[in-house]
């Protein structure tokens, strides 16, 4: 139907907007996160033209953004059926299927998208994401490389390639592609605005290297172990990091000074992000510097011991628990659980759960009525040093892939880490241990996005797993 026809068909007094304008508006509202408005417009457009493929497709995206995944898929599948050769549709559906955990459908849509648009770098990138999720890592690398071939300055594709290589244990190649991370949109502002070069691993005079605590807390804790290596080449480096990390990184020897603002760095000859050190140091899976480089102060450990002795019933094993990560993390949906999904843990009467969770998810403890006593300790924990002191006073930590896992690993505290089927690259594949943290045991999903059986395995092995010894513990 043409715009003119629409105008003719409109009842008197009704304002008619040309279809192209309405579609453009719907798309804009979705991109501007005005989801309620977008929803309303989508409904009206669908009511007027229920068989228009592009309205269906865009409405599907709006449904997805509003959390109505089934409806989104239904609309988008209908759009694709009506217009099977439109390359945009399978390209976007690939992501929607991934979000819905339907990886078989996602990969099918992904291949269809690259078939319809063989020169669309974005379509190849989307497909690479799915292939990573399916752990088809060689194919993921190949498809990411195709995207790079089509658009050599496509940081996301380089980064995806890096992650697939690193997860496959191809560290040396992986580190090279990993350098593209600072060109990602979300990395803006992570590095100082400077004309100084990135450090190349050559010696520098004392105090002339700036090390930057980039990325998340976990990465900084993990790579912090390489600061002494850098300090051998460039003594007394300046470390720039967030205030939250400072008390932790201060425990690592060799640093000249710590700053939390760019203007305090002073003069330097070169800079290096912490996450750039493994590449320079040539870290593989067999030469990771040992953990145990962080420890809580004894006095604080005693203070928390006294507190936990009061809060936790005597005679029960204390299990620390973290079930949710930072919601803004790109893979949070994959790694975060609901507290109630740890039900097998709650059924154990011989343990006391000590949640060291921070942030909004702590509210979930208000709904807890399991057999095992639960202490919602997060509200009392101020920083990572507190967390370490608490971990010294528990039997073991059970956690998802978040910064607390790194804290536990770096201090050598025993921990059980539950991981998605396609985990972050650092946890590698097919192993229960990790070269980064010997005190952590890994528990992997058997099916993507399906936690069933994982927590049960953690709980079953609590008895025999390596445990911490703490003053309040009874045999």
């Amino acid at each position, binding site marked *: 139907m043409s715009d003119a026809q629409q105008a003719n068909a409109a009842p008197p007094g009704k304002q008619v907007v040309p279809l192209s304008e309405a579609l453009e508006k719907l798309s804009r509202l979705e991109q501007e996160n005005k989801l309620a408005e977008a929803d309303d417009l989508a409904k009206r457009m669908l009511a007027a033209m229920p068989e228009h493929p592009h309205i269906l497709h865009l409405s599907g995206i709006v449904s997805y953004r509003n959390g109505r995944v089934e409806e989104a898929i239904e609309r988008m599948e209908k759009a694709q059926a009506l217009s099977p050769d439109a390359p945009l549709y399978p390209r976007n559906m690939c992501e929607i299927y991934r979000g819905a955990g339907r990886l078989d459908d996602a990969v099918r849509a992904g291949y269809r998208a690259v078939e319809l648009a063989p020169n669309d770098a974005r379509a190849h990138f989307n497909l690479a994401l799915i292939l990573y999720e399916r752990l088809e890592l060689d194919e993921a690398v190949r498809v990411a490389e195709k995207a790079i071939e089509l658009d050599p300055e496509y940081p996301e594709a380089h980064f995806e390639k890096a992650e697939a290589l690193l997860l496959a244990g191809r560290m040396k190649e992986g580190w090279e592609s990993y350098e593209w991370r600072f060109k990602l949109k979300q990395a803006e502002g992570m590095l100082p605005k400077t004309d100084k070069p990135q450090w190349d691993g050559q010696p520098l005079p004392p105090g002339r290297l700036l090390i930057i605590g980039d990325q998340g807390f976990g990465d900084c804790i993990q790579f912090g172990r390489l600061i002494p290596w850098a300090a051998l080449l460039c003594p007394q480096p300046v470390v720039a990091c967030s205030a939250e990390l400072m008390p932790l990184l201060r425990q690592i020897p060799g640093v000249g000074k710590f700053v939390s603002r760019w203007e305090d760095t002073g003069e330097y000859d070169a800079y290096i992000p912490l996450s750039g050190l493994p590449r320079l140091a040539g870290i593989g899976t067999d030469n990771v510097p040992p953990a145990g480089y962080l420890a809580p102060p004894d006095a604080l450990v005693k203070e928390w011991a006294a*507190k936990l002795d*009061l*809060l936790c*019933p*005597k*005679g029960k094993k204390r299990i620390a628990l973290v079930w949710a990560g930072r919601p803004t993390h790109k893979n949070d949906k994959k790694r975060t659980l609901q507290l109630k999904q740890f039900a097998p843990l709650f059924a154990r009467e011989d343990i006391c759960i000590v949640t060291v969770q921070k942030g909004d998810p*702590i*509210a*979930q*403890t*208000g*709904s*807890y*009525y399991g057999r095992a*006593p*639960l*202490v*919602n*300790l*997060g*509200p*009392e924990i*101020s920083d990572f040093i507190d967390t370490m002191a608490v971990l010294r006073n528990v039997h073991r930590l059970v956690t998802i892939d978040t910064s607390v896992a790194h804290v536990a690993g770096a201090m050598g505290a025993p921990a059980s880490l539950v991981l998605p089927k396609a985990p972050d690259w650092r946890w590698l594949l097919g192993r229960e241990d990790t070269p980064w943290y010997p005190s952590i045991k890994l528990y992997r999903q058997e099916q993507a996005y399906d936690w069933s059986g994982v927590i049960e395995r953690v709980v079953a092995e609590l008895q025999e797993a390596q445990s911490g010894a703490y003053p309040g513990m009874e045999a």
Partner: protein
Amino acid sequence: MRAIRCCELDMAALPLQENAALLDTQASEAAKLFNERKYAEAEALVQKLLDVMPNQRNALRVLFEIRKAQNKHEAAAALGRRLAALPGAANVRAQANTQYAQYLVAQGRHEEALPIAAAALKAMPKDATVQHLMGVVLTETGAVPEGEVHYRKALKLLPAEDGLVLANLAWNLKLQGRLDEAAELYEKALTLRPENRRGVGGKAQVEFGRGRQAAAVAVLDEALGKWGDDRTLRLLRAMADLAMRQPAAVLERLGATDGLMGPEILVRAQAFDQLGQLPEAANAWANARRMQRERSGLVYRPEALQARAAAYKAYFTADRVQVLPRARPGAFTPVFLLGFPRAGTGLLEQLLAQLPGFAGADEFAPLSDLAGQIARLTGGGGYPEALDELLLGGNLDLPERLRAQYEERRARQGLARPGVNFITDRGALNFWHIGLFKLLYPEAPVIHVLRHPYDLMLSNVMQDRKLEGNAQAGMLALAHYYALHADMVRHLRGQLTLRYMPVRYEDLVTDPELVLREVLGFIGGAGAVPQGIGANSGQVPHPLPAHFALRGPVRAAGAFRHRAYLAAMPHLFDEVRDTLAPWIEELGYMEEAAR
């Protein structure tokens, strides 16, 4: 009266108060007509007078009395308020306040009467009537030890001992669990004023509480012999039947429903419940609640509760509370008992009170009062926002000072004493004050007594007990109040680090010994739980919490009562199902049903 002289009165345009005396003669004439019960003539005259001068005190007073006599409560209250607000000499204003407060007390509106009585007391501290009034108001608003102070002042001011004041003081002491003192005072009070029927009822309740059931029944039977038509005494006698599990006697005593009042029909409902005549019980409570709605306008008013809940949820968040100062451990450990009304906190308190080192404080929870004081002490606006003032240097020790006050109250009750390490605190409003408790006693145990929500509905809907916002108005009101209560607890548990333990009523009545062992282990109390412990098996503690009066053996039949009701009346809970279903699931009672 014309609106312009009444509800639309322009206060700025009133005649000067000193000119009001010009109409005193006519006002006295109206008072005379009133005293001669010539109400229509009296009203016609005062209407004219008030049209000329809307602030003529004596005329207003006559109209106030007329409206009271007519049972036009809102109009009477409005007139009482206007009289109390009129300018004039201090003693005249104090008298107006006293009259207004007395009126509110007679209406059972004690909370409203409190500031009025306080104003009168400040103006006339040497007036025995006002001191007595203050005693009544404080006692009825839960400030029972404070009420005692004013009763005793009234007694000192009176030229001779007064049977009414003594009886009221005795009731106050009964509420404090000081039953022996109360019994002694009742003897004296009833000797002075033997016709005080309420005093006789109070005496019977004290005797019941002292475990002297036969004596209590004898007092009531004797009184009923004298005043056979006294429905309050008859109701007390029926409640004694209930407590002795003689439901057939209740039904016989109260007779058929016709002509009965709400509280009487509710007692009948409980009797039917004891007899296992469940449809009859449900019918009775439905009748009673309908009657209360239709005749007394009893309706759930959740607005203030919801606003309070929103304010508390906004304030008590992990980040905000973490930075507030805390008190250090005190002389004893309070054990905070949480639970919806009728959940079983009273039963748990009764059981704990039998263990060495424990004392039960009943519902005299000082925290509500302390929360009110925080705003005053800090000058920081309303509670809980005023807690922000604790961050300022001068207020850092406020939690310590408030904890000292908490302890002082317990000492005054005779609870904080050598050998007592744990004092239970089961205030019905405790769920609001978990945040403040956290600041005063950061690591003290919080025991939450859970019970199947349907059982709570049943137990509350049959009780003639006033709840916040009139939540007792019916089952739907109760369900909404339950959701508000549960949501508040959930929020605070989710935001605060608490030494929290849930206890299920169903476990408590099935195996009290096991549950008590678990609770004792959790609290860290010394000593062992006696074998075969039950609610009425141990020594009677002193002072005796009021609910101990009705203690009976722990009854496992109290668990899951709703099942029998559902079997008899499958649709009984239809109106509350949607409200309660999420909580039933959250508490894990779905699993129980599945088993």
